[in-house]
């Protein structure tokens, strides 16, 4: 059972990733889109005149790219399934629907690695931001942990996309608030105190902290990675539980198809 589930996840991830990578326009957009935001961030932070702030902005922009790719793409991926008429086929298959949806979130987060790489490279080549890594091993762990947890959040969002036909736009509306609330560009300490619990409940916050602490030193990157993974696992567990209820509601309300 576990072996089969792992295989379905792996094959689903490969399939979804292959599908998302097949459009050269989408791939180009995944690389170029975050560069616009990164450029704005670099100019803003450069005006501050602190070299450390540019590294801060570079890492923040890189994770922004992963989140953007996931939040927008997870919604549009599900909408595309609906337009293709494949969403009903996926639901009609005997595999638990969460094993179908989770790879969608993971694949979109994987596409986010393009964004991350292009943002870091852009910062290095155009703005001369040199990234020195304080704890390379922890940095190496923090990146996949962040990717997986953002993928898990994408999965949780995808569960709602399966139920509500128009909720695909939810991903786009969540793009900017998460940039702010998870401290991608602005330290959490600057946010109002009442907002911070929301930040702590979001895995990208801990992923961002883990990456920054591993790269720039300070803090406790291992704890951040642990929190990031734990929250990601909680999203997956919640998503699996919700999937059955959401799917039943979609079958009752006939919202799986467009016809």
């Amino acid at each position, binding site marked *: 059972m576990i072996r*089969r589930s792992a*295989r*379905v996840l792996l*094959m*689903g991830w490969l*399939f979804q990733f*292959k*599908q998302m990578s*097949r*459009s050269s326009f989408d791939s180009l957009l995944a690389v170029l889109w975050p560069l616009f935001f990164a450029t704005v961030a670099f100019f803003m932070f450069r005006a501050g005149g602190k070299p450390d702030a540019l590294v801060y902005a570079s890492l923040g922009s890189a994770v922004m790219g992963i989140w953007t790719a996931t939040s927008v793409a997870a919604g549009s991926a599900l909408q595309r399934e609906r337009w*293709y*008429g*494949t969403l*009903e*086929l*996926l*639901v*009609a*298959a*005997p*595999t*638990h629907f969460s094993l*179908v949806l989770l790879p969608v979130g993971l694949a979109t987060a994987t596409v986010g690695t393009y964004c991350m790489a292009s943002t870091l490279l852009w910062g290095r080549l155009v703005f001369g931001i040199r990234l020195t890594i304080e704890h390379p091993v922890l940095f190496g762990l923090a990146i996949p942990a962040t990717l997986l947890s953002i993928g898990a959040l994408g999965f949780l969002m995808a569960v709602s996309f399966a139920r509500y036909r128009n909720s695909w736009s939810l991903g786009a509306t969540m793009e900017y608030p998460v940039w702010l609330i998870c401290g991608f560009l602005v330290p959490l300490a600057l946010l109002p105190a009442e907002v911070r619990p929301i930040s702590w409940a979001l895995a990208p916050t801990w992923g961002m902290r883990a990456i920054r602490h591993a790269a720039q030193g300070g803090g406790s990157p291992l704890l951040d990675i642990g929190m990031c993974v734990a929250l990601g696992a909680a999203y997956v567990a919640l998503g699996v539980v919700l999937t059955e209820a959401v799917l*039943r509601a979609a*079958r*009752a*309300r*006939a919202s*799986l*198809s467009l016809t």
Partner: protein
Amino acid sequence: MAAIEVEGLRRTYKTSTGTIRRKSKLIEAVRGIDFQVGEGELFGLLGPNGAGKTTTIKMLITLLIPTAGKARVLGLDVVEDAREVRKRIGYVFGGERGVYERLSGYDNLRYFAELYGVPPREQRSRIELLLEMVGLKGREHERAEGYSRGMKQRLHVARGLLHDPDVVFLDEPTIGLDPVGARELRATISTLVEAGKTVLLTTHYMFEADALCDRIAVIDKGLIVSEGTPGELKQAVAAGSVVEVEVFGLPEGCVERVRAVAGVRSVSVEEREQAQILIVQTGADVELTHAILGTLDGASVGRVARREPTLEDAYVALVSE
């Protein structure tokens, strides 16, 4: 045990209109239907657009939850045992949707083989076998977006059979196919029945139902209006006859006037280039040709013919009642 058992099945949709003052409306797509399909039988569900055919199939394949009533497939309840039902059924629908266009036909099949739990060691041979069967061998590594409509339809069939299901649901599988493609697909459907599969088929094409189905249920406005073998359905109207009148410019209100003629069972109109063919089913032993011509208000009339009723006439009579 019947392969498919349907008892008092109903499905209602809620729709709403208006932006500020929204009004909800309930649409009864299926209004309490009963039928059974035996194991190894090819059962046809016929009906006009919006009759409830696809809604019925979607309830049977677990995509929709019935508003009321019961349905069992191979003894399994379609609501309570949905996952078990899914393992044992295949679903194929007509049209070009339902395909991952950016990927190859082979990738499409590989993904669904995984989702349907086809053992990894058997996947390759099973896919090869089905590609051969549906005639896509040699084209399987091309992107599906370049496939013709017929090729996509054949890919659907292969996908629906990947896990060797016991019951296959075919929802208008030949719609939009060219005559050769449709004939090949019908041959494939016959092969399925020969292999012992139970098939539930919906189609608009009467000759297709006549040629393939063991039994047919005619569904109209969410209700089954008749059920039987193609022969039995034809028998229901065999006692009458059909008058076909070629009219150039059918006058307004003519169909209603013909329908009002005593002895007329049903009236339909077919468009043929500049002419309209008025098809009138009449009772037995009545000669209504003159009465029908008298309702045409002097419109230009071409060929007038009288013939024996076909299955299509039986269908038209049933859904016109």
